[in-house]
């Protein structure tokens, strides 16, 4: 798999270098970056994770984790990670993957009703903060049904942005009916938190990528910028701060790798993802703060690239559950188990299900 992974990383890096520059990112809050998306689509990333039998490239979650991380590194203002994962999940459930962007809304139970024969689903109500909601199809769960809401047209869109400036509109549906092509029974082993777990995994991977970048920029800046006749990197106060950032990025990357290595439908996947989201979220806070401190005023300017990744770190740590939500879930499970937490940490499979 690894040569294939290298090729994917190579191709994706090239596309991002060419199409995801400062201007593209700055403009993306109000215009969908067509050229960037088309370039990513051209190298077939939207279907990368889908099985070859279903028309995909057959990459595995570990490969795709690396690509999502890369997209975070470049602060890509498109839901490419969301699309790769959502298309795969949809195809696993038997749906036909789509070429355009797909995003994940974990739960739409409150706005969905299914007809008794299970042939159609009606949407009536508002989904809040849907990533690129005006451009993307939406993979969502209502009860025991997985639903793919097609992109475009059928909802009233009220534009909102997260603090990175990425579109997170509220979509309101007025009695929109979807036929059976757009619904699938929830596959064996999935439950109401499955989509949220994948959403959290995607954001964790993006955060690790964004932290790679923030740290690299800070180290580079510390070596280049001179004050008092020497590079900032010579000052011990700067070294000590950057060492903490290095530790935080390393711990986040390790937590991400742990989640990517967990078998995707195993019972302990949820715990691995919870750990990843908690650790990457914590690390994001610390790494963004340190990167800014080391940069001084230039890091606070709009023109300098650091803000593209740090604003996304601040946004992504909240999406698909902030640290507190996942901590609560882990903690509740541990409290309900009544055993030693050590037994829980060293367990696997069903015994580590949250």
């Amino acid at each position, binding site marked *: 798999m690894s040569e294939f992974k290298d090729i994917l990383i190579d191709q994706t890096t090239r596309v991002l270098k060419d199409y995801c520059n400062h201007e593209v990112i700055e403009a993306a809050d109000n215009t969908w970056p067509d050229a960037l998306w088309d370039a990513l689509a051209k190298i077939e990333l939207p279907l990368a994770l889908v099985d070859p039998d279903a028309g995909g490239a057959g990459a595995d979650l570990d490969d795709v984790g690396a690509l999502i991380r890369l997209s975070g590194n470049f602060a890509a203002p498109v839901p490419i990670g969301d699309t790769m994962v959502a298309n795969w999940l949809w195809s696993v459930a038997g749906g036909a993957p789509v070429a355009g962007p797909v995003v994940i809304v974990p739960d739409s139970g409150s706005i969905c009703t299914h007809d008794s024969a299970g042939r159609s689903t009606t949407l009536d109500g508002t989904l809040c903060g849907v990533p690129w909601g005006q451009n993307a199809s939406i993979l969502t769960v209502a009860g025991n049904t997985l639903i793919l809401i097609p992109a475009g047209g059928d909802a009233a869109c009220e534009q909102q942005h997260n603090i990175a400036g990425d579109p997170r509109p509220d979509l309101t549906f007025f009695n929109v009916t979807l036929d059976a092509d757009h619904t699938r029974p929830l596959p064996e082993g999935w439950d109401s938190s499955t989509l949220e777990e994948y959403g959290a995994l995607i954001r964790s991977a993006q955060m690790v990528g964004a932290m790679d970048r923030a740290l690299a920029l800070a180290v580079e800046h510390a*070596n280049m910028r001179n004050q008092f006749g020497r590079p900032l990197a010579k000052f011990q106060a700067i070294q000590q701060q950057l060492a903490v950032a290095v530790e935080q990025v390393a711990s986040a990357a*390790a937590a991400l*790798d742990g989640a990517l290595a967990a078998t995707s439908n195993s019972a302990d996947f949820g715990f691995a993802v919870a750990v990843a989201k908690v650790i990457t979220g914590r690390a994001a806070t610390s790494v963004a703060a340190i990167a800014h401190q080391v940069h001084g005023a230039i890091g606070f300017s709009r023109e300098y690239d650091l803000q593209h990744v740090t604003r996304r770190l601040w946004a992504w740590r909240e999406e698909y559950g902030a640290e507190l939500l996942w*901590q609560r879930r882990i903690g509740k499970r541990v409290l309900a188990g009544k055993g*030693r937490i050590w037994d829980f940490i060293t367990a696997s499979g069903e015994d580590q299900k949250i």
Partner: protein
Amino acid sequence: MSATITFPAVSLPPQTEEVRRDVRAFLQTCRDDGVFTPSGNSWAIFNAEFSRRCGAAGFLGMTWPNEVGGHERSMLERYVVIEEMLAAGAPVGAHWVADRQSGPQILRHGSDAAKALLPKIAAGECYFSIGMSEPDAGSDLAAVRTKATRVEGGWQITGTKIWTTFAHHSHYIIVLARSAPQTDNRREGFTQFICDLSAPGVTVRPIVNLAGTHEFNEVVFDAHFVSDDFVVGAPGQGWDLVTGELAFERSGPDRFLSAHTLVEMAVEAADDDDRSAEIIGGLVARLANLRQMSVSVASMLEAGQSPMLEAVIVKDLGAVFEQEVPDTVRSMIDVAPQMGGEGLAREMAHSVLHAPSFSIRGGTREILRGMIARGVGLR
């Protein structure tokens, strides 16, 4: 250049689960027999009876060859044994240094005479101390002044070591001494010697710590004789040997489990509400993350790599974590620390009083962070 250090995810091989069951059963028996009650920071608790039982059960010298009393198990199997013991708050202090670093060093660099000590270490009957720090040489270890002078058949050691944990209990101490005059390279001219703590010319004086316990000591050597076969490695190799063992010393579960007994007791005492759940979930996530990183380093060591920077990262993150445990617990439950006795109040007192040492022993926080900074190209 990327400044991101990777810790590949490793899952422990299935046979380690068998080892885990064995060690859990062993610990239960020891508790039932009254050999110990769980305590935090348990690798600083001396209990020879427990160590002898560990030896008899095959939990010491686990990775060493059979002919020196070892058990030819993998490093990951050993890892599971020590993490279970530490998580259970078992008093591993007597054999800790001998099993973790002195023994492996003797195995690799010792003479046959020195190797004759290994079966006793593996039996849990022979204990070692570390003789590095001196009154004027702490973080700056190259400032060591203890002097080794060549004499007929061996060396004569003169000087003072300080903060030497369990020198009053141990049989031997491995001393880092200057065996050749200082040159422009301050790290040259050091040699490590195995010194018999009961032999003439060695005086051990207690230093009581702030918790009121006698763990460390001052050790004075006055023309103490060491025969050639108790030199570790070749003369002049001292610095390389000392730094070579640091990856083993710095990345283990001892670096984040020092307050684990308190964590378990606090979870048991916590209310079943959202706030407690959030705090406990945070502790569990960090612990799981540190453990994963530490296991990753163990498997790099097993593969013969030398993950120096990775080990330093685990140690510093681990020390921050275990130092934060008492305050995290204080934010969740109301408990007045109490000296003596048993249970949560005692454990809280123990953790509060020992926490300051977590970021000093084995390399201070600032020194570790300096190494990390250098490792990613700063300086």
